[in-house]
């Protein structure tokens, strides 16, 4: 039951109506039921394991809470034991085959004839997300940032909150648990924002990401036969696809949460408007970046112990980020690539700098080649094709567009993909540097005669109408799942 199915829309409509109508006292039970139903609809075995993880984390949190002020050592033991359990489940679910395959490759290298088994793993939907939520909760309880939760229903509602199960954002307990405890109904203001966010999310996913996916999949299926221009266009479209797919999911998730009265912080903030890789990571998958900074980078020492250790810590953090995204060496490479790029970044400029925005986009796009490719050879072939075989002739343009539909309609599809991505990027530019940006508000106030808030509200209404129109008329309601649901 992904967000783009009619089943989910019906499911959520029912949950929303009952949740809004019932009294505050019963809301947590209703949400619990919704979470159970949503998870069961994905997979029974996997949901049992998710609830097991939730219970282990809950009771672990209680023990840590009990001893954290009196017996620090014992509390730490509990902390480590529960984190180890959670990570072991994550490892068994996601990385076991990666480990055995890697060992097998090393054994093959040394001509060892033994064959290691390949395990049939379950489709562990959401495991990466709730595992990180569990770890952050346990550490926060241990560090005294939050109190260990005493209500198991409430805790399960936090850890397995259905809008965030499949692909995040990784909501923090300190922000979500108090809201879940209050279970306040949605306000008009919240509802308006949530509807906007929902429409934007569906627009990104159904119109841009799915349209791009058809093209990108065809190119990656047979890179060798594609021209440089086709590969270049596919690389650009993949950058847009992955962004619109993932941020689209986040937007829908935040919108759905908002309609249930739960405010969740933004997970993306116009990442392709970044002027450096460092800034990119402050705008891309913000909840993961914040998690990695708080629970990996800073505990490793951060930037406090000299330049050498800062580089080491940065690389280690990005390596983990890569590994978290997928159990494959291409993901590890992608993580390290971003780590290296990050090490070369000096700081974050506030002013607009279009050449730097474009350069950062190109760097990120190169990274996505490794992220998308199923092997290093495919990624390097894409790079080679782009670098060596790109020509701008009429035939090359025709061949490039033909991948869309294989016939004359390709031109329309190609143009539509470009216009839609262009409009999205233009909107993000206006929010980051243009008339709707907070930095520019004072300067433009007199000219526009309206406050930033008023202008943003007006723009949001127009944008919403555009999104609804585009979703209905241009949406691709095919069976494309969300990319980040695989992580």
């Amino acid at each position, binding site marked *: 039951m992904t967000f783009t199915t009619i089943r989910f829309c019906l499911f959520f409509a029912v949950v929303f109506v009952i949740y809004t109508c019932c009294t505050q006292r019963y809301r947590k039970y209703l949400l619990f039921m919704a979470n159970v139903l949503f998870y069961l609809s994905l997979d029974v075995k996997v949901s049992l394991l998710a609830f097991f993880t939730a219970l282990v984390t809950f009771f672990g949190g209680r023990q840590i809470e009990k001893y954290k002020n009196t017996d620090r050592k014992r509390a730490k033991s509990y902390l480590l034991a529960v984190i180890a359990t959670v990570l072991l489940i994550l490892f068994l679910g996601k990385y076991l085959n990666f480990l055995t395959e890697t060992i097998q490759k090393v054994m093959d290298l040394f001509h060892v004839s033994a064959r290691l088994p390949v395990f049939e793993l379950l489709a562990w939907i959401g495991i990466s997300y709730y595992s990180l939520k569990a770890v952050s909760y346990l550490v926060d309880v241990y560090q005294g940032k939050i109190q260990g939760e005493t209500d198991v229903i409430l805790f399960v509602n936090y850890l397995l909150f259905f809008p965030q199960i499949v692909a995040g954002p990784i909501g923090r307990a300190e922000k979500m648990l108090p809201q879940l405890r209050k279970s306040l109904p949605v306000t008009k203001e919240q509802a308006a924002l949530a509807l906007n966010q929902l429409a934007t999310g569906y627009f990104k996913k159904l119109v841009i990401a799915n349209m791009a996916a058809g093209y990108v999949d065809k190119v990656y299926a047979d890179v060798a036969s594609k021209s440089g221009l086709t590969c270049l266009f596919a690389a650009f479209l993949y950058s847009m696809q992955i962004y619109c797919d993932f941020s689209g999911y986040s937007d829908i998730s935040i919108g759905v949460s908002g309609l249930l009265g739960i405010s969740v912080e933004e997970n993306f903030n116009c990442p392709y408007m970044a002027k450096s890789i460092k800034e990119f990571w402050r705008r891309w998958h913000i909840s993961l970046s914040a998690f990695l900074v708080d629970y990996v980078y800073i505990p490793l020492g951060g930037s406090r112990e000299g330049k050498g250790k800062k580089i080491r810590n940065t690389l280690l953090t990005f390596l983990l980020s890569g590994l978290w995204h997928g159990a494959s060496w291409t993901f590890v490479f992608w993580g390290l690539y971003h780590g290296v790029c990050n090490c070369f970044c000096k700081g974050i400029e506030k002013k607009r700098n279009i050449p730097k925005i474009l350069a950062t986009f190109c760097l990120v796009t190169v990274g996505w080649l490794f992220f998308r490719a199923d092997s290093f050879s495919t990624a390097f072939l894409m790079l080679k094709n782009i670098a060596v075989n790109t020509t701008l002739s009429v035939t090359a343009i025709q061949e490039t567009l033909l991948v869309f539909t294989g016939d004359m309609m390709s*031109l329309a599809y190609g143009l539509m993909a470009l216009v839609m991505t262009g409009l999205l990027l233009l909107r993000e530019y206006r929010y980051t540097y243009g008339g709707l940006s907070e930095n520019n508000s004072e300067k433009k106030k007199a000219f526009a005669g309206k406050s930033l808030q008023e202008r943003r509200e007006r723009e949001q209404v127009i944008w919403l109408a555009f999104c609804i129109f585009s979703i209905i008329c241009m949406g691709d309601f095919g069976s494309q799942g969300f990319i980040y649901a695989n992580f």
Partner: protein
Amino acid sequence: MLKKTLKGALAGFLLALVFCLVKNSIAYKFPSKRAGMQAAISEKSIDNLFIGSSLFRQGVDIQTLEAELSGNSFVLSYNGNQPVQMSEELKMLLRNEVEISHVYMDLYVYSSSLRPAISDTRLIWDMDMQGKNVLFSDMVTYSEAGFREFFDFYVTSNNEYMIFYPVFQIVMNQEYYKGGNIRETFGSTKKSLDNLGTPGDREGIHDIQRKALEEMVELCEKEGISLSFVEIPKYYTLEQTKYYMRLREELMECIGDASCYSTENVEFDNTNPVYYQDLFHLSGEGRREYTMQLIKVIQEKETGDE
């Protein structure tokens, strides 16, 4: 703010509704100079109408027809065009008072063995509302089309085309002339054609396609139009497969004694890979050569009839 948001959502919905209404009820009248139904209608009188699938687009050379065959010729082709759709296309042309002397209809085993389905969404664009509704009701009756298909058919299809219609026309004008493809397409090699393999078997000619072929014969008789079937030669590896031969035989039985230009009476070297783009579609060279041979047989037949 919520009120404004809901108004915005409603505006978007209404805009989509109006857009789809315009697309379905008026857009088929948008002029098209070189290809498709509107181009055929604007001809007003067509002596030789070639109506078929992409096999006709790739296999019938309009410039050769213009030069060698007497009268005004036009190629009306849509990818995967099935008999059930071709019959509706002809009806629409007649509704628009196009005078037609001779119809050459594509005889294609694979499109005739399928349930009604639209491969080329341009057909939906080109049809008037009456034709659209018939095509969709066939899909409902014989292909179990439901809400999803309804949405694709009436709402989603061709929206990109409608938005970029002017740009699209510029390209169409360069690639088509009187419905025929004038873009040069190159032939293949034996190795790559062999590597393509052959498509699988089908159950047989579908009942509704069989019915549509009969209906086409009746319609042409009623309207005083001569009707001939044309079978574009496929690459020999495909034509030699048992299931293709069986399906072909079945299809030939469907048309009975109707006039037919098939591989049996039109000479063409279907073993030459240069003449083929793939197992079904001819290359530019193949298209010209085949059309010459076809015209020769048509002329011989006409002389014989006289």
